[in-house]
C-alpha cells in the first residue's frame, strides 16, 4: 500500500519543542497501519 497525505496544519507550540496536530478523530480508516 502507498499513501500520501497533504497536510494542512494547526500549530500548538512550546517555547522550542513544537507539536502540530492536523485534523480530528472523525472515523477509523485502514491506513497506514493495515498491513495487507
Amino acid at each position, binding site marked *: 500500500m502507498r*499513501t500520501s497525505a497533504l*497536510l494542512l496544519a494547526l500549530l500548538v507550540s512550546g517555547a522550542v519543542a513544537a507539536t502540530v496536530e492536523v485534523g480530528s478523530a472523525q472515523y477509523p480508516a485502514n491506513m*497506514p497501519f493495515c498491513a*495487507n
Partner: protein
Amino acid sequence: MPSTEFSDAMTISSVAWYPNSGYTSVTFDAFYINMGYCASDQLTENFDANYVSGTKTQVFQRASTYKVDAVYPWTAITLDTPFFYDPAQGNLIIEVDWPDGVDEIYTFNYYTGVNSLVMGSYGSPTGNVFMDAPYLQLQGELSLDQSTFAAIKATFR
C-alpha cells in the same frame, strides 16, 4: 487549513497516528516514510508528480520486518532523519509505503473537502484520490531564528 497557519518553520522529528480502540499491533514486511513539499493545495493521482521537484526525502526506512505496537492515544514513529519543513515553501506531503504484512491498526481520519489523500498499490506510480486525511500529530522543534519570542508566545492561545 493552509500551511500559512504554521507560524514558523520546524524540524519534524516524529509523526504520530491516532488509533482506534481494540488494536494491538501490526507487522510490515518493510516500511518507509517520505516527506516533501507540494505546491498545490490538492493532490493528484500520481504520487511523485505531487512533489515539488527535488524535495521528496526518505525520512524513515525499514527494509525488513517492522512491527508497530498500538500506543494510545498517539502511536508515534520517530524519524530516522528529521525533516526541516518551512511552510513558506509549500504544503507538506507525508508518504507511507509498505509492501505487505500481517495484522492491522485502524487509525482515525477526517474529512478535508479537498483531494488530500492518495492511496494505491505498493510500487504503483498512481493511486486513487480521496477527500480525507489522517488525524496526525507532528513533533519537532521550531526554527527559532525565524521567529521572535513574542511570536512564539502567541501560539499558546
